[in-house]
Structure formats: structure tokens, C-alpha cells
């Protein structure tokens, strides 16, 4: 069974009097342990698909299932709890809380669990170690470089050991070197820790690091390619 199942999903937005159809019967699967790049021009529905999988948005009709759970049928309260333990989300503009240190930012998802302070501390340190930022734990976001901020955001996304890591243009605001660092880290999370990753990107170089690429255009899946060299 696929980890992510999208079944006959329709999604439309109302903008003023105009109805915009993003998906008209989209169906696709993503396997556990996969590393998928979602590509396509602006407005093709990449971010909308990511939001549907994360349970941030609901389809107009159809079914979105993650790990066998029908996300599209859950209430906002159920979704919040589900996201806390199943989804790690990374944004293009990092979105760390500026008033918290790197450590405290990474700890945020763990506050929603029943873990003790000691257990939280242990897991935050491991996550920061994985992204190579143990020595920046006490730094505030303004004291970090863009690449470091994004790695902190990735640490925040993985700290609760989620089923799925979703990234929306994670290298969009990074220079080439930092982009490579982040992409290498994602590959490592996928290869070493067997994390299932979906990354939305415009960047062909970023997509090359994924194991498979999905091309969307006007809400339709037009190509699915497996990258043999993605290691």
C-alpha cells in the first residue's frame, strides 16, 4: 500500500466571481521511503497538492490518504494532532520564530507531545546534530545564515520523527552552496533514515537529487520520472 494515496481529487478556488479549478480528478500514489520532487510552472498546483497531503487544505472532492488515514475527512482539531506527529513541513522562507533560539524552534513540535523535558532535550540535540547545527543551538534566527536557518527548519521538521517530510521550495532563498548542503541533508534523511520526502521545487538541480519527479501542469500529472542516479 502506498504511503500517500490521492484518489480522484478535485480542488477549486473561488477568486472573486471566478472559479479556478486546480485539480480535476487527480489520482496518484507515493510509496513509503520515496523522495519525490514535484515540479511544474507556477499555478500548476504543486503547493496545493502539498497542502492537501499535509492536511492544511481540503479537497473539493476526492480522497487524500496518508499512511492509511483519510486526511481529507478529518476535523481541524484532529488534523492538528495528526500533523504534529506525522508531518514535518519546511517552508521556502524558513519561518523560524524569531523570538526563539534554534534549539527552542526545533523543540516546538515536541511541546505538542507528552515527552518529558529530558526526552525533548535529547531529541532536539539529535535533530540539531543530524543537520550539523549542534554548535548553533543557542543562536537566534537573525544570528544564522540562510542555509543554517533552513537546516534548523529541517531539524524542526524531523524532530518529532514524522511519517512524511514536506518541503515547499526549500532552496528558493538559498545560495548555491547552501542549496547543495540542504539537498545533501535531504538525501541523507531519505537514504539513512528512510524518511519519505516530497519536495516542491522549480530548480532542476534540486529535483535531480530526488528519486522520482512528478511534473504537474494545470493540475494534471503529465510526467512521472524515476531518477536512477539519485544517490
Amino acid at each position, binding site marked *: 500500500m502506498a504511503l500517500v494515496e490521492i484518489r480522484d481529487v478535485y480542488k477549486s478556488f473561488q477568486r472573486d466571481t471566478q472559479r479556478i479549478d486546480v485539480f480535476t480528478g487527480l489520482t496518484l500514489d507515493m510509496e513509503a521511503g520515496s523522495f519525490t520532487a514535484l515540479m511544474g510552472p507556477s499555478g500548476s498546483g504543486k503547493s496545493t497538492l502539498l497542502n492537501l497531503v*499535509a492536511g492544511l*487544505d481540503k479537497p473539493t472532492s476526492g480522497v487524500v490518504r496518508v499512511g492509511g488515514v483519510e486526511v481529507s475527512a478529518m476535523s481541524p482539531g484532529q488534523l492538528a494532532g495528526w*500533523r*504534529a*506527529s506525522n508531518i514535518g513541513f519546511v517552508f521556502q522562507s524558513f519561518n523560524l520564530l524569531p523570538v*526563539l533560539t534554534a534549539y*527552542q524552534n526545533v523543540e516546538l*513540535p515536541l511541546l505538542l507531545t507528552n515527552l518529558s523535558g529530558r526526552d525533548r532535550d535529547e531529541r532536539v540535540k539529535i535533530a540539531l546534530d543530524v543537520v550539523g547545527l549542534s554548535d548553533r543551538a543557542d543562536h537566534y534566527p537573525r544570528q544564522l545564515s540562510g542555509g543554517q536557518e533552513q537546516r534548523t527548519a529541517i531539524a524542526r521538521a524531523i524532530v518529532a520523527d514524522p511519517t512524511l517530510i514536506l518541503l515547499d*521550495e526549500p532552496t528558493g532563498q538559498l545560495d548555491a552552496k547552501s542549496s547543495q548542503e540542504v539537498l545533501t541533508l535531504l538525501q541523507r534523511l531519505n537514504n539513512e533514515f528512510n524518511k519519505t520526502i516530497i519536495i516542491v521545487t522549480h530548480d532542476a538541480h534540486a529535483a535531480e537529487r530526488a528519486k522520482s519527479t512528478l511534473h504537474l501542469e494545470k493540475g494534471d500529472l503529465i510526467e512521472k520520472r524515476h531518477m536512477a542516479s539519485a544517490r
Partner: protein
Amino acid sequence: MKYLHLVIANLRRHTLRTILTIASVALALFLFASLRTVLTTLHTNSQFGGARRLVSTNATGIVFVLPVSYANRIKSLRGVQSVSWANWFGGKYGENSRDFFAQFAVDPESYLGMYPEIELPPDQKEAFIRERTSAIIGKRLVDRYGWKLGQDVTIKGTIFPGDWTFTIRGIYTPTNPAIGDDVLLFHHAYLDERIGRPGIAGWFIVEIEDENNAGAIAKGIDDQFRNSSAATKTGTEQAFQASFATMLGNVSFLMGIIGTAVVFAILLVTANAMMMSARERTAEVAVMKTIGFSNRTLFGLVLAEAGFIALVGSALGLGFAKLLYPVVNFNGFGFLPGFNVTTMTMAWGALLAILLMLASGLVPAVRAARLPIVQALRRVE
């Protein structure tokens, strides 16, 4: 408790703004406590009055005098135990207008006999009664001017011109705060003698045997002088005190209106600052929701921030009001003896703080809880 550092971190985001917001809440509640205490003090003092004491004034108005000779005629009425009389002196000590304190010319023996609330050591009482140019003072005047027993004090008369020198023979302690502890009492006979023995009294205090006969006796007194050149108006001492409060009534009404407006203006500004602070964090709220923070948790976090500001601000404002006035011994320049922030005022202040917390915290808290994540993130990204 595990979210406490989040609340504190957000409050420290704009430290100066947080401090100013807390200061605004503190100021608003300090003003609230102070203004309410003015009103409660006026009310409490208007309730002062011995159950068996009546006061007769000139029916035309309190600024008009009565002949002292009325005393014997009043005393002859059935049910009257004793009669005393007093005059407002209205002198000045020093050049500073803030040096104002009340002085009354009284008939010492009968007056002190009627007012057990004025506690005076027996030897001082005797010395006061014996010496025509002597005076007794409240302890506050000792604190303020450093006056001592046996010291001569000169007061400049305004209603009764000239320099009036009194020898301090007693320092009294009021057992009821409404009496005031910054009053100077001296011999009516000395006043009468210096102004040419006109035999005038500002008002009479009439002690009666049975408080249940107060109405009948008051009527009896007024009936006796109804057709004379100076008719009287007699009532209970409480009604007499209340008439002063009524005179101040419009002032307190105005003060209440202006004060309430000021307090609410400050509270609105404060609430706006708190709401603005929450509005600025729309993006962060969306990010926290994406991470998995529930609507309820975010609602609680935003409300906790507002609550912290309201709690600290109100504790500072109300606490300062409660502590300040006793420390500086404030009595409204003699007009508000017994000025003390009551427990009820503190409770109303605390209620106001809770309302402020709800008013300023509920809107952003509900907004945070209801924030649609996707739209908010679209603004962020």
C-alpha cells in the same frame, strides 16, 4: 507550563512596547483605584455621625451664624442631654496653599464630652479646657510641622482677621478616620473675646438621650426658633455630614465621569497595543498551526499573553495605590480623612483587569484560532 517560555519570548519580542503596555495598564488601574477611593471616602465620611447627636445650623445656610444664646434654650428641651457649639475659623498657617488644614473654635468641655471619638490623654484634656488661648491638634499636624506640646503657633485669620496665637496643649488621636487627624480645635470663648463678643456660633451639636426621639427633638428645636431672626435647621449629624457630601456631589460626579473616561481611554490604547502585537504575528500563528498547534492551544497562548500584561499591570497599579497613600499619609489636604483603598476597590480593579484581558486578548486569540492556514501561509510565502 511547557508553553511558558513561548509566552515570555513573545512578550520580550518588543520589550519596550511590553513595558509601556504594562505601564499603561498600571496607570489606568492606579487612577481607577484612586478615583474610586475618593468616592468611597466621601461616601464613608458622609455616613459618619453619632446616633444620638443632632446638628442645628442656620436655616438659610451653613455660612450664616446663630446666636450662642440658643444653647440654653435648646438644652431646656425635653430629651436633650447636652449642647455644644462650634465655628469654622478658616485661618492660614504659612504661605503655601497646600498648608491648609481645618480649625474650629469649640466649647472645649461640652465638645470633647460629646465626641469620645477624639481621644486625648486626661492631663492634656484638662490643660486644654483650663487655658483659654490653648489648642489641641491631630497627630498629622505634628508630623507635618513638627509642633510640640507647649509650643505657640500663630495662625493668620482670614474670616476673622489678625494673627491668632495658640498654645498647643494636646495632641488627639481620632478613633474614627472621618474625624480627621489634621484639625486644630481651640476655645470658642477666645474667638468670641477677640472679635468683640458678638456671641455667634456656626452650628450647634445636640446630644439627645434617646436616638429614637431624634425626629421629634429636631422638630422641637426648629419650632422654637421658627419665628426668630435666625431660624434653625436641625437634623442628625449623619445628615449634616451627608449635606457636605452632597455639596461635593457634583464634583465627585464630574470626577467620576472624567476619571472613567480617562481610564477607559488608556485601556483602549492598551487593548489596541495588545491586539496590534498579536496581529503582527499572523504568519507565525500559521506556521505554528502547520507544525500541529491546535486552535485551542493558540487561543490559550494569545490569551495568556494578554493575561500576563493585565495581571502584572494591575498588580503594579493596584498595589502601588494600596501602598502609596498610607505611606504618604494622604488625606486630600484635609478634605478626605481616612483615605484608604478598600478591598472592594481592589476587587473591582481586579475585575477590570480581567475585563481588559478579555477585551484585548479575546479578539486576537479568536482570530489566531480561526486563522485559515493556507491563506495566511500564502501571505508569508
